[in-house]
């Protein structure tokens, strides 16, 4: 099977979190525990789903290498690493050169 990690949004602030090996929740994907076995991830998913501090936990496929965990799907990469453009930036308007 493909490698998996478990993600959710945290209840209090809505931020993206990942399940760690110690059963805690971390905002850093590098802290996530990677499952090789579907049964194991499903068991942890069920336990996490019953907890009150997170919303809608689910497993996602990832690749690993170079000490990095990278989600396979773009949607999950955006969740992990943030919007793909600069946000909250005022941009000054261009002017037209005189004819």
């Amino acid at each position: 099977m493909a490698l998996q990690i478990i993600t959710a949004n945290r209840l209090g602030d809505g931020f993206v979190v990942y399940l760690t090996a110690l059963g805690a929740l971390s905002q850093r994907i590098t802290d996530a525990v990677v499952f090789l076995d579907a049964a194991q991830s499903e068991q942890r998913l069920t336990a996490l789903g019953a907890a009150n501090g997170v919303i809608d936990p689910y497993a996602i496929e990832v690749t690993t290498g170079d000490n990095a965990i990278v989600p396979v799907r773009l949607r999950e990469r955006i969740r992990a690493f943030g919007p793909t453009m600069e946000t909250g930036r005022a941009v000054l308007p261009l002017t037209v050169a005189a004819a």
Partner: protein
Amino acid sequence: MYRYDEYDHALVKQRVAQFRDQTQRRLAGGLTEDEFKPLRLMNGLYLQLHAYMLRVAIPYGVMSSAQLRKLAYIARRFDKGYGHFTTRQNIQFNWPKLEDVPEILEELASVEMHAIQTSGNCIRNTTADQYAGVAADEVEDPRVYCELIRQWSTLHPEFSFLPRKFKIAVAGASQDRAAVRFHDIGIVIRSDDQGEVGFEILVGGGLGRSPFVAKTIRNFLPKKHLLSYLEAILRVYNQLGRRDNKYKARIKVLVFETGIDKFTQLVEEEWRHIENGALTLPAEEVARIKGQFAPPPYEDLENGPPELGVRQQTDTDFARWTLINLVPHKQPGYAIVNLSLKPIDGVPGDMTAEQMDTVAGLAERYSFGEITSTHEQNLIFAHVRQKDLFDLWRQLKKAGLATPNVGLISDIICCPGMDYCSLATARSIPVAQRISDRFRDLKQQYDIGELRLKMSGCINACGHHHAGHIGILGVDRKGEEFYQITLGGSADENAAIGQVIGPAFSSDAVVDAVTVVVETYLQLRQNAERFIDTYWRTGPEPFKEKLYAAH
């Protein structure tokens, strides 16, 4: 502008207290997410990819400077220092914490704002022509009727759990600037043969998965019957609209499947029961609301003050801005000013807290403290003295709000897409930025002329792509982003749904494809023909040939 009465204040304060209690129970574990979700959605609170998102209502787009300052405060104190204006004239904050939302709602209530009915299967924020009250071609001010609809529809006990969400727009002139033909109900204020002012009522328009142009259900409805007629339409929809399939639950599908003649008959039958009942509008109440939208104390001025002409002759940038971003005002000596929220390379519709504070101050100084957000994701100053235009322009320019591109190719309507939205299947903002960058030469944009480019990151069409002269829809193909191009859409009084021009383009290819479409238009256009007129004259074939020539 409309000010809350004691009922409005009480209702909004009660809702804040209610949501505070619901939030506390959720955080303490007393409510499950399944129980809490519909409650938070009733208060405009979604969960998106990265965080919660709070959508704040701006009824028909009208804000005071005090309200905009409050939005700036919320952006700074509770969010990441910016907000996003939407195609329903609302504003969204992308990063609020659930635990802060009751306090945010309390802050909003202090300036007569809220987030009620910005989500859920209810009647959403009624939108209007952004030039309401000041347009030279206006029959009557649509905000008066939007406000009446707001009061009627707020917490309407019969219509709080409709089959699906419901959107109404009102235009005050024959030129449709509110996209009324793409709404569940569209209302056009018009005169009949005797000169009496009333409404043309359209029904069953919409975008999304199944786009439809609304059909006229009543050519002319006397004013006093507005609410009873809307009630009759909603009752028929509430009873017959599908609840078994959310993709077929909007009124547009009911109207299409029933047929407009039969649907009209059902509405008229329902209306006969309530036609002269409690919903008949009392003239004095209409007059009271009208009074709240009375024109500000304009000075007696003449059009074209000498200082304006001198500045236009000596400053090319200013002259361009006045040509592109201004609209004629019905009051001599005044102008309607569009503030562009589409700087080249910027995020369409985004505004920083600092910009909000600056605009609030400028509105007080130059436009009687009033600001309007538009469904095209820009802002309006509705009452600027022509002799003040140069000073205002210089200050807007410093704040990054004077890009002279309104109605041009870089004035892109764009949904948040997959950078924020949990429904999106592709990103939209970065593509809009690349298109904006490709056409960053403003001289080139002026040469191209009016071109409405609209872009959505999924089939739900929040970016109105079906109604774009050029529309772009982001789709997912086996994990990769692709972009489907439609041509020939239009949101105005000649409403049309764009046609898919051919196979979708990869993310790398889509900006080049848009460039080919524009270049083809420039080769084909006759005289000063607009893009849309050229397309309607030639049809899709020449564009298809150029786009897919290499394939």
